[in-house]
């Protein structure tokens, strides 16, 4: 795009807010009852974050990889691409994150959960539960249709926030796995900001919070991390 600085951010938005929100209503209707499956996957992840076998990290990563793949194909390619020319690029980003989660977490076993009692681990779990059970209701809370709820495992925003919670709660911060989720926080925040959505700041704040807490955790030796 030439002379891109001449554009106002709103000039780059190629759809109306009502079209964007209707997308989730149609998406949910077309996928029912897959919502039960992804909710079950979310409950399983939360449960495994609290406790379970030694290899639970591999299973959590596999479940996350699955839902990222689902969002890449089901949401970005099948739905969002109809109204946003950039959606296929977002789909590739989500696909790449699914591969990274599968390789780093499931195959190499680099996502582990042995220190579940640290304050950071508990914060990570709280962030995940927020993404699973609270974030989907932000739309109806601000007056949008219940049928358009954005659910973990199907819609990008709660999937990204939930993943950030898991990565924060893990024993070690895997920075290579944070890049795409944090980038999406910025992209989604910008999109919602331009649409004057009341929850526009949620995603950037979530990304910033995880980056700050992740940096703090990385700089603090594990034996000194606070346990409550």
């Amino acid at each position, binding site marked *: 795009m*030439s*002379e891109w600085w*001449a*554009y106002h951010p*709103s*000039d780059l*938005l*190629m*759809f*109306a807010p*009502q*079209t964007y929100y*209707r*997308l989730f209503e*149609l998406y949910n209707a077309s996928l029912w009852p897959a919502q039960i499956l992804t909710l079950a996957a979310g409950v399983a992840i939360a449960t495994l974050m609290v406790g379970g076998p030694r290899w639970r990290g591999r299973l959590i990563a596999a479940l996350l990889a699955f839902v990222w793949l689902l969002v890449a194909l089901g949401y970005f390619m099948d*739905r969002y691409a*109809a*109204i*946003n*020319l950039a959606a296929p690029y977002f789909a590739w980003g989500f696909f790449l994150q699914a591969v990274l989660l599968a390789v780093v977490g499931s195959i190499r076993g680099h996502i582990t959960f042995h220190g579940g009692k640290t304050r950071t681990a508990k914060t990570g779990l709280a962030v995940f539960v927020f993404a699973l059970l609270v974030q989907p209701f932000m739309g109806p809370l601000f007056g949008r249709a219940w049928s358009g709820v954005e659910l973990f495992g199907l819609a990008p925003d709660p999937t990204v926030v939930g993943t950030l919670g898991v990565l924060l709660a893990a024993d070690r911060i895997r920075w290579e796995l944070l890049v795409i989720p944090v980038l999406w926080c910025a992209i989604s925040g910008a999109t919602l900001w331009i649409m004057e959505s009341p929850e526009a700041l949620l995603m950037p704040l979530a990304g910033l919070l995880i980056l700050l807490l992740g940096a703090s955790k990385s700089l603090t030796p594990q034996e000194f991390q606070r346990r409550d």
Partner: protein
Amino acid sequence: MQLSRRQLMGSLALASLTALVPQIARAQDAPLAKRIPSSGEALPIVGLGSWITFNVGDDPVARDSSAEVMKAFFDGGGRMIDSSPMYGSAQGVIGYCLQKTGNAASVFSTDKVWIANGDGGPEQIEQTRLLWGIDRFDLLQVHNLVAWEAHLNALKAMKSEGKLRYVGITTSHGRRHGELEKIMRNHDLDFVQLTYNIADREAEDRLLPLAQERGIAVIANRPFRRKELIHRFEDQKLPDWAEEIGAANWAQFLLKFVISHPAITCAIPATTQVDHVRENLRSARDPLPDEKTRQRMVAYIREL
């Protein structure tokens, strides 16, 4: 049919008026039209844009709503609908609406070629044509000067083969006016499309006079800067003299300013509202502001 003396005098008066303003063609109950300089064909001076408004994907409710807007547009005498491959699903939605409203034959179909690969134009145009569901386009334009030399040559070839009626080139947001001016000077164009509204008047300096000099029709995009200008002024009082130019609200005030410029052939506001499309078409009726009133409009806006 016999004419009464009053009817005859009225017709003569109308004929005299038409002679005084030769660019403007008139038909009863239809929006005002201007002649396309390269052909003399009359075109209603208000068209319909599709950026954002027709990009509704496969939402059946929104598609039917778009069809209602299109039906109101044609019922009100509108003809030009403009789109681009850059507008997401808009082209396919236009095709759906044309089929549903049965207006594929009456539309003045206007689209663009927008692809960085200069050789990819014909393939993209064919995809666009299939989405619209029409036999050929009335007007195709090189979008935002992207790979313009290759695309312009391809469009000229299509025109000479009878596969296209008019050739044009576009820019928006006031960008690359210098380059557009060079193209207008050195190439045979039927149309240019550019941004022109009461707040963005840079085109008045060189491009609009050049279009008149070279006999190029001008399409004005962003007549309301999307909705920004309407939102900016909606809480302000319309001047008392707005009635004199037939403007009942700010949208009509702003649109009448655009379409009354002698070089502007057609403005293409976009909307999702049936009421708004009717209101826009009502703007394309007499009286239109003359040059003195246009200056008064600009001065009034500056004071707000």
